[in-house]
């Protein structure tokens, strides 16, 4: 029997999520170094259509389970179902997104399946027969090459993939679907879903803003958020944003939070001031057309996504920038 590279499919019940196609791209790269075949696993309330889509588009087998009460991620049911499905197949590698749910079930699965777990993977490197999984530490300031010895179907390696690390690969073959579909009831009474509460970012003006000036922990004090507001005034219509800690400290309301758990923005211009560039923040600004970074640390990871890099103390630099801008607006000779 050939072994699998198992992909845990992320979806919202109706559509396959982009992160699944990122996992597929990652799996293809991994496959080059192994003899294993790619296979998709799906858990949801009604998975048949999604499984057919995956299977017909990729040609890879899809193993799908309909399980009640999984419309919203439910850790207990998810872990039980996946453990059951995965144990019925022979997997060397199990790939999941490094999403909030992936972060919850992947480490647990590695224990249930007697495997090992590497989270937040961004790349694979091969040296001879040995594979290294590259992941970030210290908010992207360090990179670690991780390795797992003795990967086998009796001790699989569970990996979570950092969103955005791989370009999604979305094939469009039109094969007639062959899927394995089953129904399970892993109703779990230790944990009961009670409902959903809206995001404080709902309706935030950031999602549509064309220019956004954001401040991070580099502002150091609440009153220094005025520098962010000051910089925003040089543009005719600019919104102000913030990194998560600024909102956690109560220095700006949560509706201003940009990032994975805030608003995903796509302005023409994003100016990041005193923000280090954590993956969660970067996930929110990836679609910005032009990024300017003001940070006093030249090694801050946010510079890696910047179009213009300015290594300066924002508290000194922003007033100078605003003054220069005003000089241009005032006609000469006055």
């Amino acid at each position, binding site marked *: 029997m050939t072994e699998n590279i198992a992909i845990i499919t992320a979806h919202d019940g109706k559509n396959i999520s982009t992160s699944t196609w990122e996992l597929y791209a990652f799996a293809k790269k991994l496959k080059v170094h192994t003899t294993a075949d790619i296979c998709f696993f799906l858990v949801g309330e009604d998975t048949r259509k999604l499984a057919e889509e995956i299977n017909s588009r990729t040609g890879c087998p899809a193993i799908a389970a309909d399980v009640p009460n999984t419309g919203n*991620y*439910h850790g*207990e049911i998810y872990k039980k179902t996946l453990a059951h499905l995965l144990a019925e197949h022979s997997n060397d590698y199990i790939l999941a997104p490094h*999403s*909030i749910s992936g*972060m*919850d*079930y*992947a*480490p*647990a699965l590695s*224990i249930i399946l*007697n*495997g*090992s777990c590497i*989270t*937040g993977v961004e790349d694979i490197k091969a040296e001879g027969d040995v594979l290294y999984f590259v*992941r970030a*530490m*210290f*908010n992207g*300031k*360090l990179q*670690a*090459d991780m*390795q*797992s010895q*003795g990967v086998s179907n009796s*001790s699989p390696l569970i990996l979570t993939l950092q969103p955005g690390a791989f370009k999604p690969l979305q094939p469009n073959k039109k094969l007639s679907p062959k899927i394995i579909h089953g129904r399970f009831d892993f109703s779990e*009474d*230790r*944990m*009961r*879903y*009670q409902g959903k*509460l809206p*995001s404080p*970012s*709902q309706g935030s003006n950031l999602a549509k803003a064309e220019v956004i000036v954001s401040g991070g922990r580099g502002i150091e004090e609440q009153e220094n958020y005025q520098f962010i507001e000051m910089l925003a005034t040089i*543009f005719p219509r600019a919104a102000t944003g913030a990194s*998560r800690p600024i*909102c*956690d400290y*109560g220095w700006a309301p*949560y509706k201003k939070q940009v990032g*994975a758990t805030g*608003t995903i923005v796509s302005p023409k211009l994003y100016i990041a001031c005193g923000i280090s560039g954590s993956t969660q923040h970067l996930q929110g600004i990836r679609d910005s057309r032009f990024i*300017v*970074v003001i940070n006093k640390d030249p090694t801050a990871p946010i*510079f890696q*996504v*910047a*179009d*213009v*890099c*300015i*290594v300066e103390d924002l508290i000194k630099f922003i007033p100078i*920038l605003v003054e*220069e*801008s005003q000089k241009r607006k005032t006609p000469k000779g006055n």
Partner: protein
Amino acid sequence: MKLLVCIKQVMESGSEIIIDDSRHGLTYSNVTRFEINKYDEYAIEEAILIKEKFGNVHIDAITVGPSRSGDALRRALGIGADEAIHILDETKGYRPPITTASWIAEVAKDRNYDLILTGIMSDDEMNGQTGPMIAQILNRPCAGTIIKEEISSDGKTITIEREIEGGAKDVFQIDLPCVLAVQTGINSPRYPSLSKVMRAKKKTFDLILAESLKKPGQQPKLHALGFPQKMSHGIVLEGSPQEKAVQLLDILVSKSLA
């Protein structure tokens, strides 16, 4: 009610990062300062809020690490934990989360905690595995990215809000005992109080040698640490702040952005 808070000592944020010759760890100097992992500070605070609300609550703080990480425990006591457990591990090099989680689970197993709190991840290694692994080893329900919790008056269940992508929250009621991994913003961590710090100074830790605990079989290894290759495609502005300001404005005008 008995609570366990798992904390990790990490290098102070903004510290210079120096990779050691083995490329398996970092070099610390006598100016290197350490602090409690930011996410764990929220976990400690949440435990103290539970204690303040219910009264009859005992809080243990636990850490795995070398002797210097005792400072993190002392700080946790200074903030309001009742007792500290130090799993002393002086071995150099990388300790994967499965090892940390196995050891904590082994120590926690017979101590009957109603609730185990961890941070959602550590600032340094960012694995985010310790909480979910402890829960799985102890076969307890688990939830992460917790930004609100409320224990029922009978002490049997806890209602939590779990933040998901985009900032919405899923609400669950979970049976105790369980494990929760706490997200920032759940509360405002307090500073240590002088009286508690004085008391903490005199306190002895429950010291457990890592060698006396079982090492898990399967564990990932750290092959090498490195600095990421600079991939920036951006222009780095040079000159005085004024010159940089002028250059930036010129670029923005040329791109019709200002």
